[in-house]
């Protein structure tokens, strides 16, 4: 695809773009524990259900966003762009940011939104295991296209050990992953 072609809708219709925005808006309200917990659901929606992008394109969005500075949520912008160009990016970013921001804005202004309110506590206590389960699902879904490649799976395992055993920046592992991959290893 040329740069000019990538500015179009990539073959999607406008109602697809609206549907995309609507789905991400729904996900926005379900994003407890950060947007990355939703990546496996986004993969199901974009790759499995609609086939708008393939699994490796999906992984590339997350990998590029993690290697760049700024909030990890920007992987959502890249996904939108690879699905339907700038319009797709607007759809996914506005979808994922606006509904949750309205909730946050309203709750942030309410004086009784305190940490010790029973509902707030029950919410964070009750959703903690779900958040962890969703993280495992996301890690699993990202590793899935790579299971045929032993070195890539070794990189997954090495990253887990590196993060649990050292306090160094994850950028070291991202650089190592890029190097191993570029040399044809992964």
């Amino acid at each position, binding site marked *: 695809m040329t740069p000019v072609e*990538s500015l179009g809708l990539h073959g999607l219709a406008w109602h697809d773009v609206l549907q995309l925005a609507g789905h991400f808006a*729904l996900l*926005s309200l379900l994003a*407890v524990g*950060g947007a990355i917990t939703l990546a496996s*659901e986004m993969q199901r929606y974009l790759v*499995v259900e609609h086939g708008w992008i393939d699994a*490796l394109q999906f992984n*590339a969005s*997350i*990998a*590029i966003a*993690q*290697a*760049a*500075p*700024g*909030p990890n949520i920007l992987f959502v912008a*890249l996904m939108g762009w690879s699905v339907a160009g700038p319009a797709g990016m607007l759809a996914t970013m506005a979808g994922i*940011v606006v*509904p*949750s*921001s309205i909730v*946050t*804005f309203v709750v*942030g*202004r309410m004086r009784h939104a305190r940490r010790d309110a*029973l509902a*707030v*506590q*029950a919410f*964070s206590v009750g959703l*903690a*295991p779900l*958040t962890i*389960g*969703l*993280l*495992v*699902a996301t890690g*699993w879904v*990202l*590793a899935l*296209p*790579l299971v045929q490649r032993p070195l*890539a799976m070794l*990189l997954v*395992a090495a*990253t*887990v050990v590196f*993060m649990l055993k050292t306090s160094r920046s*994850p950028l070291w*592992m*991202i650089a*190592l*992953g*890029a190097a191993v*991959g570029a040399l*044809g290893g*992964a």
Partner: protein
Amino acid sequence: MSAATDPAPDSGGEAPPRVPRSKTELFVAFTWLALQGFGGVLPVAQRELVERQRWLSREQFVELLSLSQVLPGPNVVNLSLMFGDRHFGWRGALAAVAGMLGAPLLIVLALAALYVQFSAVPQVAGALRGMGAVASGLILSTAFKLAPTLKRNAMGLWPCVLIALASALAIGWLRWPLVWVVLVLGLGGFAWAWHRLSMQRRPSS
């Protein structure tokens, strides 16, 4: 009640020594903060807002962060939004969020455009695959780091393990839509946690 004109909340121990002077200062500070955040912005946010700018005391930061985490949506966006709102109302919220997302968005798009140009080069495709493997490991390690906190969860260990396993399998393996999984397991967890917490709060007679 206007959150914009309220003085900084004094609930969190010592008051912060400084306040942002303008929406521009807010925007610039959050842009600078976001651009330093490789692989996660939260540690940088703590250093910038609490230690360098001294706009928040440590207690206020923790309070803002825990509220950001409980609310839906990206945590750092929620945190920027509430901080901006406390100082300059909705315009401040917009300034902080725009600072947090604007410049990083341009950088990430430039990187993605480069990737599209060179994705046919096997080394570039390989490098992205390798980084994807690392991304998977980073997310799994976050899950493993958080897992021990379930031992102290008020719901009890086994309900937690059950919910975590069920959600991982339903989403990652069976690929069920998230909405139903969250409605069933999330509401179930919420109700059970509510029950357990209100039992704990009741004075034991």
